[in-house]
């Protein structure tokens, strides 16, 4: 699902975020991307969903070379890849139903179908009963579940999560990981960037380790 070949990312001469990163995440796998702060985990994820371009190297997602696609095709890529962020990134002025239905909306899906899919997605994360609430009215864990619902509404082939439990207490973190496992069980490839070693050990999944921008274990 994700294939990276000799990927470098330099911001300037003194700042190299990634150095000669080559890795492979097969389809359907659940994988952790770990390392200390500044190791390059977030940078790598940003390259995978084309928020940034690598300085060198290539990255294939679903067999498609995303480093070569034109800017006009980036939205299409992002709709096929769900992303969950540490700070949730929900639209504060919209209800959680509107937040989740925004994704099918931009695809031109009819309003009724948007609501149906959004409701279904929220039900999968057990938040359908709060669909008219605003993000500020939810706890951190609930907001993260909404973000997951939004990331999954298009049934993406790949789910990326950048420190998804960084702002949550251990119980909430467990709940989120359980959701990820369920998603993975349904066939979605999951790549979670985290520095939570205890979580990684408990989950017992494959781990790719980055240190100072290089792959030290995979």
């Amino acid at each position, binding site marked *: 699902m994700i294939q990276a070949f000799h990927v470098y990312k330099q911001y300037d001469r003194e700042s190299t975020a990634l150095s000669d990163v080559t890795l492979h995440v097969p389809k359907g796998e659940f994988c952790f991307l770990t390392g200390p702060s500044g190791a390059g985990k977030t940078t790598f994820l940003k390259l995978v*969903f084309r*928020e940034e371009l690598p300085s060198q190297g290539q990255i294939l997602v679903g067999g498609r070379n995303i480093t070569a696609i034109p800017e*006009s095709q980036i*939205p*299409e*890529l*992002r*709709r096929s890849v769900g*992303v969950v962020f540490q700070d949730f*990134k*929900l*639209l*504060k*002025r919209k209800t959680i139903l509107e937040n989740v239905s*925004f*994704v099918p*909306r*931009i695809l*031109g899906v*009819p*309003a009724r179908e948007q609501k149906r899919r959004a409701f279904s997605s929220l039900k999968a994360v057990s938040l359908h009963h709060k669909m008219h609430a605003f993000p500020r009215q939810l706890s951190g864990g609930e907001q993260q579940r909404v973000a997951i619902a*939004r990331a999954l509404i298009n049934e993406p082939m790949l789910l990326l999560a950048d420190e998804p439990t960084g702002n949550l207490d251990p119980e909430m973190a467990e709940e989120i990981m359980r959701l990820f496992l369920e998603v993975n069980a349904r066939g979605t490839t999951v790549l979670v960037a985290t520095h939570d070693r205890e979580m990684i050990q408990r989950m017992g999944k494959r781990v790719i380790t980055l240190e100072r921008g290089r792959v030290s274990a995979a």
Partner: protein
Amino acid sequence: MALFRALGYFFGEAFTSLWRSRLVNAISIGTIAVSLFVLGAFLTVAGNLGDVVTKWTEKIQIIVYLEADIEDRVQASLENRLIEDPAVESLDLVDRSEALERFKTLFRDLSSLPEDLGENPFPASYEVNLRPGHQSPEEVQRLANVFVDVPGVQEIQYDLLWIERLATGVRLLRAAGAFLGGILVLAGIFTISNVIRLTVYAREDELDIMRLVGATRAYVKGPFVVEGMLQGGLGGSLAAGLLWLTLGWLARDLNTSELLGRTAFALPTEISMALVFGGMAVGVVGSLVSLRRVRV
């Protein structure tokens, strides 16, 4: 259908944003309205005066004033000579009493003047209408030269030069209006551009999220372009409304003379439409200029 849904989204978001920052948007709309009001006023007055000038030019007349004690046979001879001139299409005799009535109608405030003087000071005259094709300064000058010394003629008056000066004045007014209008339109674009940029900055987080979940640039930008268009359109509508009220007040309260008629202060529909649609265009351009400079 997808296009209609997208447009529905753009308009919905635009209206919400307009309402949410209504004070800032009201100031922007007001600024546009003032700019377009001034531009519209220039265009209207210059356009209407131009129409009046055109009408006058088509009806160029020479007025041959008769001596007060002209004999009937001298007057008849003069009349025949005028009719026979190839440049003359028709004559209208205005006798002294009719001239007095015309004066009283045109200048109501001075209508008692002749009685105060004790006599009718107005001479009789022939209003000479020229044939089409002979309405030129040269023909007018020729006729004046031919008839100025004819017995019975006191004075010959022709208003061609004055009309030409007025036409030049109208052209200058139009040019000044176009120049000023250009500056005001730029000011309008600048205003809307800055308001939209402020809106974009205020919603930067929201726009980031939209991009990250796969919204196209068009989808992200669309609501802002529509918002700019609505601001400009509302400004243009306000300008047209104010202009209509102002011109209506001027036409009523200045008691416009019969010469100008009410046409000088009439607001043509085309100008109203131009202000509204021009405002919308200014809004769209302002938004696009702003959106080019920010990352969306």
